[in-house]
């Protein structure tokens, strides 16, 4: 066995107890104990689309590499991140993908390569994306999908892949159970009590023009710059923004862009 004995013991312990875990904090902590022994520093599980309580892309659980994630957020890497964008397009019963394989098999933009390079410098040298298709209808169309990304100072191997895959599937199973239980208890108040995740918002009713304007606002542009780009007046842009804020009850533009980011791409 190429996995060290101590790591193997931690994994075995986690796998025996994962079914009994009752909170997301405990799940994250326990999983971090098991994965850290394997060299994994960064875990994040995202529900890409699917079951009732998590209609959109939402972080389900994770143990983040703080320095990296701060750097990642500051530089708005979530907009370009090749891995998350790729994982969100998956709809199949796919196999796990190693980061290095992903880099060599895909045409990446300069920014996307830069993100991988910087992650490497922060100690996330190799990682894996485990797709978790969960529920399907009778025709085998997947109706619920999540994925787990894990990274750290690790070396790619079949055994590590299998172990991380199993850990990811088992942890997601427990997280799903916790979410559903909380949802059944209080469906209106969704997940706020359970996690830091803010309420889910249905943005599907945004008009085409609103989406166009908001996409630029999310990129960090001001109303005047957006007005210039789209060939309209600043007043029109502001009116659109105000309309969106009123419709969804956002107090500030900051709150709105945060929610939009979360729905558009995860962080």
């Amino acid at each position: 066995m190429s996995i060290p004995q101590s790591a193997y013991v931690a994994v075995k312990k986690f796998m025996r107890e994962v079914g009994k875990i009752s909170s997301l904090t405990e799940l994250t902590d326990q999983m971090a104990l098991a994965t850290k022994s394997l060299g994994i520093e960064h875990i994040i599980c995202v529900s890409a689309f699917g079951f009732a309580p998590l209609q959109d892309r939402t972080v389900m659980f994770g143990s983040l590499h703080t320095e990296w994630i701060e750097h990642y957020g500051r530089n708005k890497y979530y907009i370009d991140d090749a891995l998350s964008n790729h994982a969100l397009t998956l709809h199949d019963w796919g196999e796990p993908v190693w980061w290095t394989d992903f880099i060599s098999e895909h045409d990446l933009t300069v920014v996307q390569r830069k993100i991988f390079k910087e992650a490497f410098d922060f100690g996330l040298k190799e990682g894996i994306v485990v797709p978790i298709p969960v529920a399907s209808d009778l025709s085998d169309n997947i109706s619920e999908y999540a994925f787990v990304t894990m990274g750290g100072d690790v070396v790619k191997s079949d055994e590590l892949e299998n172990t991380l895959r199993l850990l990811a599937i088992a942890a997601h199973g427990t997280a799903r159970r916790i979410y559903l239980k909380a949802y059944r208890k209080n469906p209106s108040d969704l997940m706020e009590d359970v996690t830091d995740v803010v309420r889910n918002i249905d943005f599907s009713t945004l008009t085409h023009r609103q989406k166009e304007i908001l996409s630029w606002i999310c990129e960090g542009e001001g109303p005047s710059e957006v007005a210039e780009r789209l060939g309209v007046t600043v007043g029109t842009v502001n009116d659109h923004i105000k309309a969106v804020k009123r419709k969804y009850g956002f107090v500030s533009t900051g709150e709105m862009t945060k929610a939009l980011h979360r729905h558009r791409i995860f962080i």
Partner: protein
Amino acid sequence: MIHIITRHNSQMYSDIIDQMHLLRHEVFVDGKGWKKLRGENDYEIDQFDTDEAVYFLKLDAKDKILGGMRLLPTTVPTQLGTIFRDYCEFEEPPSDPTVWEWSRYFIVDKQYRSRAGYPVFYELFFSILEYAVFNGISALTGFLEASTLPRLNALPWEISYMGNIHNYGGTDGEPVGKGAAVRVSVDSRMLRITKRMKKMAAAYCALPLGDLSPAPHMAYPPEVSLKFLDFLAKHPEQTDALLHVANIFCDQRAGTREYTRNAVAEWLREEHQKEAMRGFSGLVSSGLVSGQASFAKQ
């Protein structure tokens, strides 16, 4: 309709069992390339196809097999207990009369949908769960493909992984794959919730009477079909009596419930009288009365 074949009724299914071994050869050896399982005369039979094995087969109206699965008690040698033993690092393979192992799952017709719109594996799984609950089985174990593991997360089942995911195959040009040993706890609540979730109301078990089982479009709730199987296991000497009942059901005139009810009742009366004349309390009458009541309801 799902037919449950045990050592007690296998003599009534000899043709079907033959067909199953041929099909398994087609699916596992010719289709998936498992050369190790190649058998004589295109039969796929392994060391686990013993008297203890219980087969669940989905048969269509013409007795053609559409899919199937095998169940084995863990008190006899099983796959996890022998060939996959090394794959159970987290938990020892059990040896417990209430824990059974499933294996040799195959679906021949993936396009098939029942009248209620369900694929073959739905009916297979639910009849296995019904069988397990009826027979006091507390858990099922099995070696599952890694790609099917996430699907278990969507089911309200208590699952424990008995070992890590392992790569298998690859020797002698055999296919490679990944899988893990899994244990699923079974109880009546779990069956009820799963049925409600999948909107499965109907029963899918056939009477365990082989070629003589009643019209193919009829299925019976486990209380009826499994009770008959149970009865057959306890009283093999009464096989003829059960066949007689099946004959009544297969009768062309069995279109009306009234006829069937009367015919069964009349036969029961006759048997009861015969037994009374012979001077002992009749097994047939006592054993079948509740069964008859259930038939009447159908």
